[in-house]
């Protein structure tokens, strides 16, 4: 089959035996599918793909713009109320601070009056309290200590038993035992003046970690 493509017409090696009058530029493209078709298809596909990509991105940007405008509208609608809420919150915080400070100022594990009343309620008839001391420093690092000093009636043997039982009863007391720990009998010695036994009990307030 004869081929009239441009390439096949180009003389290769053998010298021409007559003048070639063909104008290659003007000869038609005789391939089954012309090159222009491929060029146009490729360029067109690339252009369409880029246009679609561009359109998608622009649509996304537009959508985001809409959403931003919506969010801004919500901000604008609530801005005044929000500012008022913030103002009120600040007032609330400041006022609350005062209450908290007053509460912290007064906070004690057990008020002195309650402690003395409970000591009075639990006191056996054989025991007489001469001195009660309560030290509650405002510095939380320093321990809070209550001290009881007094006399126990009876023989030395009986007095020792009574004092020991009294300390046990203080430890077992639902309120005192819950707040004070350790409760220790520090001294139990004969009192020269009365013939009774004098004692000293130390009650320490439980630290936060112990509770």
């Amino acid at each position, binding site marked *: 089959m004869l081929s009239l493509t441009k390439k096949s017409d180009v003389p290769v090696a053998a010298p021409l035996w007559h003048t070639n009058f063909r104008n290659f530029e003007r000869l038609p493209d005789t391939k089954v599918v012309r090159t222009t078709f491929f060029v146009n298809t490729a*360029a067109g596909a690339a252009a369409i793909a880029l246009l679609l990509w561009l359109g998608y991105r622009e649509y996304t940007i537009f959508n985001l713009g809409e*959403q*931003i405008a919506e969010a801004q509208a919500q901000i604008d609608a*609530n801005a005044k109320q929000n500012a008022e809420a913030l103002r009120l919150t600040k007032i609330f915080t400041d*006022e609350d601070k005062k209450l908290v400070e007053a509460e912290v100022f007064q906070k004690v594990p057990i008020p002195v009056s309650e402690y003395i009343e409970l000591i009075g309620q639990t006191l056996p008839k054989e025991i*007489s309290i001469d001195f009660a001391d309560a030290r*509650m420093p*405002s510095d939380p690092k320093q321990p809070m200590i209550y001290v009881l000093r*007094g006399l126990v009636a009876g023989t030395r043997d009986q007095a020792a038993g009574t004092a020991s039982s009294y300390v046990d009863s203080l430890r077992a007391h639902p309120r005192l035992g819950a707040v004070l720990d350790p409760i220790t009998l520090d001294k139990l010695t004969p009192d020269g003046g009365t013939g009774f036994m004098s004692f000293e009990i130390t009650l320490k307030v439980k630290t936060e970690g112990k509770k």
Partner: protein
Amino acid sequence: MTFADLIARIKKQPIGFTCVMICLLSGGWLYYRSGEIDARQEEYRAKSEQAAKFISNVAISKNLPEQVAELQTITKEMDGRLVRAGQLAVNLQYFYKLEAENEVKLLDVRQNPVPKNAKTLFVGIPYNVNIQGPYKNVMAFLQRLEKGRHFCRVNTASFTKFAGTAGMGDGSSITLALSLELLGQP
């Protein structure tokens, strides 16, 4: 290649040339707007967060005006219970009044210098108080002090049996030495 050659080529491949031009323009535009989506997404995230915060603040603060008014009433009442360090006579009068009401003998009452404290809104104004009386009356005095008009914190309390009476009990007489603070303003 001259300009004329280029024109000739364009004329020969007009569709291809148009498509290439579209590609170039689209590419340029895509490059020009390449950061736009990220920037808008960031802006949207910030705005939506702010809007959500505003809505939440408004919703939470629905009953805030009433709560603030209630709190202000309480703190106003509290302000009335604070001691003013400068009003020495008024402050001491409080103890004398308690003395009279509880029928105890006020042996000594002193207002001590106010410690400097910049950390808190209020300060504890220190007092030393010594009283003497029957056990019940002394206890009543102490209770009135602890739960009285002013905010009180007892730092030390020493109960001592008054000489010549039996031990601490309902019928005995005792002395009470107190070191306390009343919440106030310097």
